């Protein structure tokens, strides 16, 4: 009788447990899908908290209660991020400034290309390199120029901007010359210009309304962004307030047979992932710092050099593609920069291109030969093929954020699986 009772109970418990696990999985999957927008703020908050955890464990200001130290830490990080965001926002060009940049880029690209290839403007003949590759490269260049050429509407916007700001905006006179040169080169005839002028007159009144509308939508966008990202500091604070209670709750759910096993798995996974993430953060900061410093040394303004360094450092977390992104951003700026103040002699705007490539190459060499081996060691080894497919897969699913988070996600998965099997064998479960 007793035996039967026990048996029935066992069956019931198996049913209840499996039903709850299935229900929990369904719920989690559904919520992950439905609350996709909240996912990134939560991940960012959690990641920040995770990265900062050792700062609290080490006895910095030991006489302060833990909660106060968390708040101070949040203040420091929040302040830092707000300052960075502010300076990035300032350096993001407005619509008109983008037009100016486009004009500058178009002109400079053409100028650099012609000077490298030795193309003579009148005869159209270049040096022997040009003669060798012109059939291949000319279609590509004209493709690029056609992207950079302003449309009718953009042209009228640009002229309007020029008329309104020619006294205040630095170098605008020069950029207008670029614009005219671009136009000439694009073989836009006087007729088209006339047409544009007429168009411009009719457009002049309409643009004011359009601007108002744009402002409204920016505020709306801002509100949307704010409401989900408001989660991040909360996740950060409460994860750092936690004194192992969250973990204890989950361990409590583990059956007795797997109790010690679960403690060890959680701990080993935590150590491995913590080392990897903190190592990666340090490595990216070092790369970013090196590129920023290098650009400053070859003459780029310190603020811009550091901004490009920060972008390149962040992008460096993406394997293979990251260094290229850093290089492209650096070269993009190098293309349009008008004057530089190099610390090393012999660098001018003409050979700045090579100096930037050199800086990025040096930073990457340092990264591969010194930073990575020292900071990351061989903590987590992923096969290059896994890395490539992971990065592409991440970009397909979540865009840029997916690209950035793909490798950490794969690393976490790998560490969890590896540790799980190793420990289950040690505890003779499998």
């Amino acid at each position, binding site marked *: 009788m007793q035996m039967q009772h026990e048996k029935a109970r066992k069956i019931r418990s198996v049913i209840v447990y499996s039903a709850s696990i299935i229900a929990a999985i369904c719920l989690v999957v559904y919520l992950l899908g439905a609350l996709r927008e909240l996912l990134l703020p939560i991940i960012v908050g959690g990641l920040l908290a995770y990265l900062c955890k050792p700062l609290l464990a080490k*006895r910095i200001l030991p006489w302060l209660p833990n909660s106060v130290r968390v708040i101070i830490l949040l203040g420091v990080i929040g302040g830092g991020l707000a300052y960075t965001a502010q300076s990035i926002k300032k350096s993001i060009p407005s619509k008109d400034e983008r037009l100016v940049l486009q004009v500058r880029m178009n002109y400079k690209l053409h100028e650099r290309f012609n000077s490298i290839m030795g193309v003579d403007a009148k005869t159209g003949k270049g040096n022997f390199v040009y003669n060798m590759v012109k059939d291949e490269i000319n279609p590509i260049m004209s493709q690029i120029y056609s992207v950079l050429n302003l449309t009718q509407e953009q042209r009228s916007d640009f002229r309007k901007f020029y008329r309104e700001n020619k006294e205040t905006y630095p170098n605008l006179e020069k950029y207008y010359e670029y614009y005219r040169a671009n136009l000439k080169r694009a073989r836009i005839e006087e007729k088209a210009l006339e047409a544009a002028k007429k168009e411009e007159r009719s457009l002049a009144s309409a643009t004011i309304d359009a601007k108002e509308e744009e402002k409204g939508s920016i505020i709306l966008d801002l509100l949307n962004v704010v409401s989900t990202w408001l989660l991040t500091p909360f996740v950060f604070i409460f994860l750092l307030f936690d*004194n192992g209670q969250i973990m204890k709750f989950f361990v*409590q759910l583990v059956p*007795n*047979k797997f*109790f*010690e096993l679960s*403690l*060890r798995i959680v701990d080993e996974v935590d150590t491995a992932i913590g080392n990897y993430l903190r190592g990666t953060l340090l490595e990216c900061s070092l790369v970013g710092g090196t590129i920023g410093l290098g650009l400053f040394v070859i003459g780029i303004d310190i603020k811009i050099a550091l901004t490009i360094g920060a972008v390149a450092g962040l992008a460096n977390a993406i394997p293979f593609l990251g260094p290229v992104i850093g290089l492209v951003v650096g070269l993009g700026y190098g293309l349009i920069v008008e004057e530089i103040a190099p610390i090393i002699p012999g660098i001018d705007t003409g050979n700045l291109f090579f100096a930037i490539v050199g800086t990025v190459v040096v930073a990457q060499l340092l990264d591969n030969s010194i930073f990575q081996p020292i900071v990351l060691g061989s903590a987590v080894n992923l096969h290059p093929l896994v890395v490539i497919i992971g990065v592409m897969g991440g970009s397909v699913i979540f865009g840029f954020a997916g690209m950035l988070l793909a490798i950490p996600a794969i690393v976490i998965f790998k560490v969890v699986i590896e540790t799980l099997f190793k420990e289950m064998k040690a505890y*003779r479960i499998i």
Partner: protein
Amino acid sequence: MMEKFKDNVSFYWEYFFKNEENSEQVSQTKFLQSLPFFSKLSLRQIRVISEYLHYREYADDEYLFEYGTPGAALFLIFEGSVAIEVPTPSGVNQVAILEDNSFLGELALLSSAERTASARCIKKSKCFALYRNDLDRLADSSPEICAEIYKSLAKVVGRRLEATTKQITSFKEKHGNKNNADAA
């Protein structure tokens, strides 16, 4: 009528002056203080350490840990009884039975070496477990508590070593005598 009034009043006052800790927490604190590891700690320190303890309930015949698996935690028996068993080729050899207010597996606090015996509950038991790495983390936040625990741990291990040495000596004496007798 009067009784009811009294009940209400007492409920009111009980609620008003209600101690933060309920009776279970008080008995847990007393239990922890009765163990050598925590006997020198203040009430406040006991409260800190109890945040790190994992509470587990075991059914009859369930294992706390098994012979040969890596040790991870010290177990404190709050209630119940646990048999310490060593598997031998001829069958399971029961070495000891531990009752309420005792502890086992303390070597796991020092290293993850394999357990030298199994611990099996022989009736329903309530235990607390202290994980080795939690103790390491405690060293960071409250080193004085950690030092006290390690000191007690050293004493316990020292006593065990002493007992083992004595056992080996007496075993050798007997064995040595027997060998001598055989040689003669």
